[in-house]
């Protein structure tokens, strides 16, 4: 197929999932990686052949958390940090629905950190896509739990003295059963991982390393969106290759691919067994 034709087909798919009636352009800065993640999510869902009605997109507050509002699914844009417990209620009430959470590094790991580890622990069948841009975009560039040591934000004007979280290690340690990472540069991989995560039964996390060129880029002289995308390309190391590298060699690298994938019983399934065993008891 000619490239132009392919591109048109791709954009038709995207348009099919954008919400009619929702006013565009989005709130996002031109070049923001949030748009790439939105595209990946659309194509992943399309590839899986899910019906729009069976998908619930839940988010908290942040630039990244605006994503569900643009898409033609059931959407629940909640409060800062609380997307996962809202999603837990929605999923547990209707376990046949595909519940996908869109969250930011601040949303998921600072204010929502407790909910994050407990959703992992329960292994509830929710897919969380954590768009990690290492900063608070929406509120204008403050430090987040993933802001690397030494880097600048409006609240670390002399360089960050704190340590940062690795969301993937945190999720795996807390009990998530599928954990993967990619970047907004590696769109085909990101799309594939999101698809795998949605198909996985249990709690799945896809960390999408993204650019906030407007704040993180500017405050840390990382250049514009394109320069930041290029840097993701340079820094990415597939998980297989990474396993043969030393910690020093991995410094500043982004390990991509499926990082953790195990089978465990899922929360809603287990609860259903309780219901089946006790239904009708007086």
């Amino acid at each position, binding site marked *: 197929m000619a490239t132009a034709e392919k591109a048109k087909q791709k954009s038709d798919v995207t348009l099919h999932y954008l919400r009619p*009636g929702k006013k565009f352009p989005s709130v996002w800065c031109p070049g923001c990686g949030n748009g790439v993640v939105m595209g990946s999510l659309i194509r992943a869902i399309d590839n899986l052949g899910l019906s729009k009605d069976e998908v619930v997109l839940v988010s908290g507050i942040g630039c990244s958390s605006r994503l569900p509002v643009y898409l033609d*699914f059931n959407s629940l844009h909640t409060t800062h940090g609380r997307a996962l*417990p809202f999603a837990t209620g929605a999923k547990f009430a209707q376990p046949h629905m595909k519940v996908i959470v869109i969250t930011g590094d601040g949303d998921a790991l600072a204010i929502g950190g407790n909910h994050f580890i407990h959703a992992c622990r329960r292994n509830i069948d929710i897919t969380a896509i954590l768009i990690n841009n290492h900063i608070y975009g929406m509120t204008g560039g403050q430090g987040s739990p993933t802001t690397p040591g030494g880097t600048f934000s409006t609240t670390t004007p002399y360089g960050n003295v704190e340590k940062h979280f690795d969301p993937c290690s945190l999720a795996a340690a807390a009990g998530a059963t599928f954990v993967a990472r990619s970047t907004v540069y590696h769109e085909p991989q990101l799309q594939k991982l999101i698809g795998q995560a949605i198909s996985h039964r249990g709690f799945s996390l896809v960390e999408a390393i993204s650019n906030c060129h407007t704040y993180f880029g500017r405050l840390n002289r990382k250049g514009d969106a394109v320069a930041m995308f290029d840097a993701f390309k340079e820094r990415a190391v597939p998980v297989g290759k990474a396993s043969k590298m030393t910690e020093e060699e991995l410094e500043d690298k982004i390990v991509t691919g499926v990082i953790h994938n195990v089978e465990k019983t899922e929360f809603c399934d287990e609860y259903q067994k309780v219901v089946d065993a*006790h239904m009708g008891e007086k």
Partner: protein
Amino acid sequence: MPARERKLLQGNQACVHGAIYAGMRFFAGYPITPSTEVAEMSARLLPRIGGRFIQMEDEIGSIAAVVGASISGLKSMTATSGPGYSLMLENIGYAYMTETPCVIVNVQRGGPSTGLPTKVSQSDTMQARYGPHGDYCAIAVAPSTVADTVTETIRAFNLAERFRTPVTVLLDEVIAHSRELIYLPEEGELEIYNRVKPTASPEEFEAFALTPNGVSPMPSYGEGYRYNVTGLTHDTHGFTTNRVDEIPVKLEKLRHKIADYTDEIEKIRVEHMDDAEVAIIAYGSAARAALQATDIARKVGAKVGAVQLYSIWPFPDAKLKELCGRCKKVIVAELNMGQLITEIERIMPDKQITTLQRYDGEILTPLQVVKKIEEVL
């Protein structure tokens, strides 16, 4: 007629029976004295009827799960006490804004802060009205006996569904932990209200449409309507707005759908008020003392009447004013340092208002109320 089911229950347990009767199929909560039995009973009973119980990691998560489950179509409830209610406030505000029916039981204990975990109080009266930030109309109901707790919890669910709004059940430690022999309502005996579902096609559906009574039909996720729910101020389609002509429309909808229908919400019990010169106003366990004291005082000929509020919010301004019309004096009895009284003073500036407060963690006794009546007379 079949014999009605008789049960010896605590208020907290009665609350769960009422909730299930009203159709509760989802409970999320976090243990806190003196409300914990509500969660425990829900955990035990819900699976037996195909419902769902989840113990969340905290109260913020509990109310979030409740809202998520309600939007997914299940009648949902959480239960807590002061500190937990404080934690829930942001998401209760979310429920107001998104017009999500749900029930929050607040078994009041002494505060502020951790306060008196095992002692009675009514010091969350105002929190139930003004807790979450922003402008909205709150609904709070208040039982005073174990039997009431069944009916008021049912009423709370009905009001939540009728008005598409969170409703607080203001219990207190004494009612929650008292055991009383009660009859549970039979199937079909009490009316159960279910949220109105849309009849429009998904293409024509407007999620927060302005209807004559202000309540928009509410589909569940998965029913084909795919609408947007957000805590940001939104237009009638559920999309964020900053427009000066759309913002007031939303806020007025939240207000008028409740403020214009207070007749459906207000519930007051009146005893001996026909010729009363002194009125005692109270709710919850304080009302029990007030009612008993009124009976005692009447026996010695004192012209005293009692008004028990079963619904605190919206405050029954007009009805109370009318009821107390011929009284010169009003006693407000409450288990706090004066919360209900601010409302009474607001609506009856012309009356001689006396307060009877107790905030040492103990209940008001009928004798204390009788003494106050003597003082006032």
